[in-house]
């Protein structure tokens, strides 16, 4: 009798493994169809034909931004100066910074896939330095910062040959992919960046990062489509988008734009923002029932993607009746203002099991990331809308710092930050 459970467990395992074997290989993503089953129509954003040049410098910060910052510094604008002081005080934004590239970038090490330990902190520290130094060069015009920034970027392109690790490697591909691409984009008009080196850098992003990003968005590591939380997709979307801009590959940029609107995974903007509570003008996130650290990261990633796309002429901020504004308000209301928010139960379909989130998660409530200034200035200053809870977030984080200012762990580096300096508009 004791063998009965053993046998039945074995049988169950066998049947499960058979189902697993019968799964088809990854299908190529078809960009023409909305692969989700989201009900309700939406006005999609059209893409331009492959070959259409992208806007440079693109990325998060463009020429107009630096002109505004320059004028504000000259006018001794208190807010901008406070934001600048925050950048200058960051140890990464130092022309004596020493890059520390690795041949094999590991996130998810000491695992079946990768026996060696993690080393991804070297990537997020170095790319934060490259980005911050690029900002200092753009703002001060001093060559030393630019030289250091491209030294870091060149060193990584020359040294790093592959990404490795358990499934977490796709987080590295996404998060450090978009950050390296944006740092490179910021430096692309630096006259002393040897064109050969810049080309090598573009190639590095295309060969080491992009294939991982693309693979994840198509295959999701062989998992069922809803297994991976929104942030996994969002990091990879941001990376594909930014690499597309850096390398002038419109088809990559289009891939990101299409996935964001029509993709099957949780990074589809209408899945990442799970439900709009219309009456209250608030929108619940796919990760709101998980924990607030991750929910807040969704806001950070969507803001990054929206701002990048905005500079290419695509308005994802306004997508689906400003749904992202409502998501930011929701997240700030709950985490910053500490007020109650409405809830619609969410079924997290983790393959064979469904976990019902019957209430918003209290875990990590109060999570603060330097993200709200970017969002606030778009909706309120560019668009003339109101964002009272996002404003509280702006104040709470004032002046916003960046990687290195929010602890030594990866969460403090997931977003590039410095919103007070970079996005405050008069």
């Amino acid at each position, binding site marked *: *009798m004791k*063998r*009965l459970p053993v*046998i*039945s467990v*074995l*049988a*169950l395992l*066998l*049947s499960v493994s058979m189902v697993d074997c019968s799964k088809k290989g990854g299908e190529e993503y078809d960009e023409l169809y909305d692969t989700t089953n989201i009900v309700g129509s939406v006005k999609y954003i059209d893409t331009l034909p492959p070959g259409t040049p992208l806007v440079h410098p693109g990325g998060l910060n463009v020429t107009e931004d630096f002109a505004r910052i320059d004028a504000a510094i000259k006018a001794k604008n208190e807010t901008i100066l406070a934001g600048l002081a925050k950048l200058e005080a960051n140890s990464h934004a130092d022309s004596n910074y020493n890059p520390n590239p690795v041949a094999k970038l590991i996130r998810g090490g000491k695992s079946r896939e990768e026996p060696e330990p993690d080393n991804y902190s070297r990537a997020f520290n170095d790319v934060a330095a490259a980005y911050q130094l690029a900002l200092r060069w753009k703002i001060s015009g001093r060559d030393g910062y630019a030289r250091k920034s491209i030294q870091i970027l060149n060193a990584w392109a020359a040294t790093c040959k592959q990404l490795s690790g358990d499934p977490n490697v796709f987080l590295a591909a996404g998060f450090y992919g978009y950050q390296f691409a944006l740092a490179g984009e910021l430096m692309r008009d630096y006259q002393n960046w040897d064109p050969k080196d810049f080309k090598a850098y573009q190639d590095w992003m295309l060969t080491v990062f992009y294939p991982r990003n693309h693979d994840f968005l198509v295959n999701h590591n062989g998992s069922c489509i809803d297994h991976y939380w929104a942030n996994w997709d969002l990091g990879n979307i941001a990376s594909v988008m930014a690499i597309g801009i850096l390398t002038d590959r419109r088809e990559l940029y289009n891939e990101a734009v299409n996935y964001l609107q029509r993709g099957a995974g949780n990074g589809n903007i209408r899945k990442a923002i799970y439900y709009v509570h219309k009456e209250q003008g608030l929108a619940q996130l796919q990760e709101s029932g998980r924990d607030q650290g991750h929910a807040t990261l969704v806001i950070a990633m969507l803001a990054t993607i929206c701002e990048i796309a905005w500079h290419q002429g695509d308005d994802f901020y306004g997508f689906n009746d400003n749904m992202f504004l409502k998501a930011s308000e929701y997240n700030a209301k709950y985490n910053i*203002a*500490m*007020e*109650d928010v409405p809830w619609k139960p969410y079924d997290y379909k983790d393959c064979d099991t469904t976990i019902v989130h019957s209430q918003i998660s*209290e875990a990590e*409530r*109060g999570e*603060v990331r330097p993200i709200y200034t970017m969002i606030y200035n778009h909706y309120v200053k560019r668009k003339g809308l109101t964002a*009272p809870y996002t404003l*509280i977030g*702006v*104040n*709470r*984080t*004032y*002046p916003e710092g960046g990687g290195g200012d929010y602890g030594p762990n990866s969460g403090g580096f997931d977003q590039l930050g410095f919103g007070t300096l970079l996005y405050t508009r008069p």
Partner: protein
Amino acid sequence: MKNFIVPAVIGGMILGAAACTKNFLDLKPLDRLNEASYFTTPDQFKFATNDFYEKMISWEPIDGSSIYDFMDFGSDISGYVGQDGQGKYGRGAINVPLDDKYWNNPYAYIRSINIVLKKAESYPGKKDEIKQYVAAAKFFRAWQYFFLLKRFGGVPVITTVPDVGGAELMAPRNSRYEVVDQILADLTDAIAGLPTEQAIPASEKGHVSKWAAEAFKARVLLYEATWRKYTGTSTDFEGSAGPATDQVNSFLTEAVSLAKDVMLNGGYKLWNYNANNSMANRSNYYLFNIDGTGGNPAGLDKTTNTEFILKSMYDLNLRPGSINLSHTVQTRMLPNRKMMDMYLCTDGLPVSKSARFMGYHNVADEYANRDYRMLSYALGSGSVPGEGDIKLDGRLGYTNYKFSAYRYPTYRAMNQESQDYPQIRLAEVYLIYAEALMEKNGAISDAELNSSINLLRARAGIAPLTNALVNDNGLNMLDEIRRERTVELYGECFRYDDLKRWGIAERQLNQDVCGMIVGGASYETDFKVSSKVNPGVDSTTSLYIQKNYENGGVAETSVPTKFGDLKAILLDAGSNRNFKRMHYLYPIPLRQIQLNPNLVQNNEY
């Protein structure tokens, strides 16, 4: 799949065949300990009752419990405004849950206790052999019912071991008065059957003593007497019976005499090593993290502690705390403005009256001439902050170190903190004694104060509380006794219960929650000064980022001080807080009402 069906079918047939065996259900399992063959020796009763000790909430999470649900985070003296757990409760933001582990757990424990008591009745040996364990079981049954009483008010009193169809499962709620009667009856028996601390051999230390039962009974009596006096029947559920008689005075009288017995005969002593210079008068800090000889600079280990009357015992190797204790108390058990101002000055007077109070100009000032408990809790082993040490960039500006390891994270690392948790300590007995006397007589003599709470004040370096001090300075004796309790028992899971039994919870919890005094042009601090450009106008210094505190455009509010109204950081506006009389009790979890429709929900939920 076929592989599965065949054995399943065969298995089913075998099961069916086995079910035909006569008395199948009456068989005793032979391969493990079981109720049917257990409980035949005194040791077996001891082992069974040993299990009840860990069911008192303490560091280690048992059955999903968390001490953080009880450490007064988010109360009227807390600077933690996170909206989780108790933070939510303090704001009156709780809903009826489907389940509540703090309903399910105590009832599961009570069932185990009832099994032991039932088995004791049929114990074949001499009853005297198991007297101590029967008494302990009754103590813990009282403990669990008191836990339920505090949370839910009246609950079904179950003293039997219900079967699956037992009538007990459909029982309506007993009134709080009946629950209290049950608790007191159990404690009377417990006191009669438990050994004194002195009679418990060294190898058995940690077991509950007669003194512990007396102290606990005094706690229950004071709790219930004051609840009835101030909160009355206002929280009783619909249809609840009232008190059979007015027991307030008899409860207070008994509380006084029990407390006095423990004080005189218990042999417990306040842990005061302030005479040792290396302790820097911080006994009130080190008492709560004694753990090996490295828990304090004097090398004092747990054997030096005779203040704890009943404790949950921990040990780095045998039973580490296994929660992130130091970090959590440092970031959540935070004091707010009210708490920081509640500590007396060394002359025994409050900051609003004492000439020794130095104010808030420099961040060090408010620590001068103050209660050692303020230094102990807020600074731990650290020194008073100096100019520029406190930066207000969204942080509170105060920390808490009570219960935090001495040299965290070196001695002890995260999750390794293994100090004992005080379930009952002598300091509380002094406080019960003084408060119960005051409540009973409306007066208390200097001698009575000297034999109780003035011993706490001596350890804290402040002048004794006397009738002269009260009269000469326009103080209120009851308020001062309550203040003493608030200060001494800070963070020890009493504050919410105290506010509720004093009937003042809604008034106290719904006030503005404030942080540091920032002052302004007319009262300069590290954070705000008079503008150099426009003298007389407030100007923030580089140590203060006002925006980081803005909520709806408001970062500060005025608080009354000895120096007039001063600006302080507003952490949570009173208008956001909505604690009501209904919240004195938690709601009965929904599933229990579904299972037993005779359970009446608490008022207004």
